[in-house]
């Protein structure tokens, strides 16, 4: 083997080792989830008899039907509304230009560094006062507010990168503001919008602290939040916990595999533009 073939082999050896390190834990819980419930599970051991019943058992005892429903309802509102508000605001800030636009952009960027912990305390007591705790509406609006800084910033920098002539040409043709947005900008912006949508979906699905605080009613909690409390109840039943974890992971992994390019682009470029 010559030198360059050697280094190539070494490179791939290194990458593969890392890939194994990343994937090993998942193989571990996937194997654990098919062991008989309540039993001891050794690392990487194949079960003597494969038992799929953990999934049904976890689904039942963790009330995951309800939890998944809550997660879905919240995501179904949060994703389109965030994308829509972000696109409108990004358009106003980058193309239309508003009085005080610089300050507003800055206010949104500041939101990127504010941790949820800072918001959640007052948010809970404010929403309790107006009866929006234990309600989908409260969580949906709070999540939109939480994801808007990134959304606005993302759409704004995307629209700013569109060649100016395109917008001017449409204006010369007499297009009004909303026509420029819907007929000129949006049709060429689907990749950016898709990326934003999948990121917001992921953040909404994985949101934990906010939901834990806002939803005292176990039936209204989302899947990850329910899972977090499920651990407290079934802490030692590894097969059952593994099955429950896989149930909660499954939807986000499916979305990730379908849109993996969007995820990677969003998380890397989104940050790079900052």
């Amino acid at each position, binding site marked *: 083997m010559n030198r360059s073939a050697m280094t190539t082999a070494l*490179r*791939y050896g*290194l990458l593969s080792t*890392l890939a194994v390190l*990343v994937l090993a834990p998942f193989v*571990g*819980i996937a194997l654990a989830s098919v062991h008989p419930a309540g039993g001891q599970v*050794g690392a*990487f051991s194949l079960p003597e008899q494969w038992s799929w019943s953990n999934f049904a058992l976890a689904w039942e005892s963790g009330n995951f039907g309800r939890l998944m429903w809550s997660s879905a309802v919240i995501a179904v509102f949060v994703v389109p509304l965030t994308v*829509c*508000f*972000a696109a409108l*605001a990004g*358009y106003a800030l980058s*193309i*239309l*230009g508003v*009085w005080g636009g610089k300050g507003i952009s800055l206010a949104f960027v500041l*939101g990127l*560094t*504010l*941790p949820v*912990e*800072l918001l*959640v*305390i*007052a948010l*809970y*007591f404010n929403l309790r006062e107006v009866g929006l705790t234990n309600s989908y509406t409260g969580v949906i609006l*709070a999540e939109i*507010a939480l994801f*808007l800084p990134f*959304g606005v910033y993302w759409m704004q920098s995307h629209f700013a990168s569109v060649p100016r002539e395109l*917008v001017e040409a449409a*204006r*010369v*043709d*007499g297009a009004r*503001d909303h026509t420029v*947005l819907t007929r000129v900008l949006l049709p060429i912006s689907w990749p950016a919008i898709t990326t934003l949508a999948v990121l917001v979906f*992921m953040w909404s*699905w*994985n949101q934990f*602290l906010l939901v834990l*605080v806002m939803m005292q009613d176990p039936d209204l909690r989302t899947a*990850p939040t329910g*899972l*977090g409390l499920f*651990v407290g109840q079934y802490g030692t039943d590894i097969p059952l*916990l*593994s099955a429950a*974890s896989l149930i*909660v*992971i499954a939807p*986000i992994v499916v979305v990730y595999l379908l849109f*993996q390019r969007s*995820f*990677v682009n969003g998380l890397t470029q989104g*940050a790079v533009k*900052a």
Partner: protein
Amino acid sequence: MASGALLRGNATAGTRRPRRSRLRAWLYLLPALVVYAGFAIYSAAGTVWFSFLDWDGVAPPTWAGLANYTRVLTEPLLAGAILNGLVLIVFFSLIPIAVGLLLTGLLLGRVRTGMTFFRTVFFLPQVLPLVAVGITWRWLYSDDGMINRALETVGLGAITHAWLGDYHFALIALGLIGTWCMSGLCMVLFMSGAQRIDPSLHEAAAIDGAGPLRRFRYVTLPGLRREVGIAAVITTIAALASFDLVFVTTNGGPAGQTNVPALLVYRLAFNEGTIGGASALAVVLTLIVIVLVSAIRLLTREAK
């Protein structure tokens, strides 16, 4: 459509547009602004206000001045949690960045075939709910979990532990979960950054007799300045604000060894009803985040 252009006159320049249309532009901004101001800004300001109060969430609040802040900085429980948060930065931020740089140096962005697959795998931990990640690692770290089995296999059976329950190792064990989560992100960021560096720079350095190490030090590393900054910002925020992972793995234990600010904010505000203290802790946490993020931005700013 020439008439349209005539009517609009020089408004098409976009810079000098009629006052009315500038006002109309505000309508586009309004939905985002209302939700953001009403739910994020108003809440953040509310928490800052609470931090000066003595309030249990039920009885009428009384003014506390800076007492809550003194508590955060002097009470060992609260100050300890902040220190733990800072320790986690080593594991969530410094080690992953080092790992990412090392691998980028070794690979030098020269891997093309199969890169999509590796990128997908390395990024996976970023996408998953941290609760599920925590549950998985709880089991890996357990008495008879994968880590201890692996140690026994390589003849280190003597040092096996229930890692997350160990007084001395719990925080490190917790931090290493963060390392596992964040290394992939850093690596993908750096590798895509390294591919942007002009190959002729490497060639020129090689002609000048620079070995691989010096080329990495003087060509690759400066070229990755921006990416290192981004990775540092993302991972530092993740370390300081971590909650989900700690909540399901150790919940602060054993004996408070893994208390982190977010966990105490939650516990103080929603279990113990000391809202003033919780708010002050949240405000201090936010200030630390802002100071560190600004420092990182300043340090990694590209020289003009």
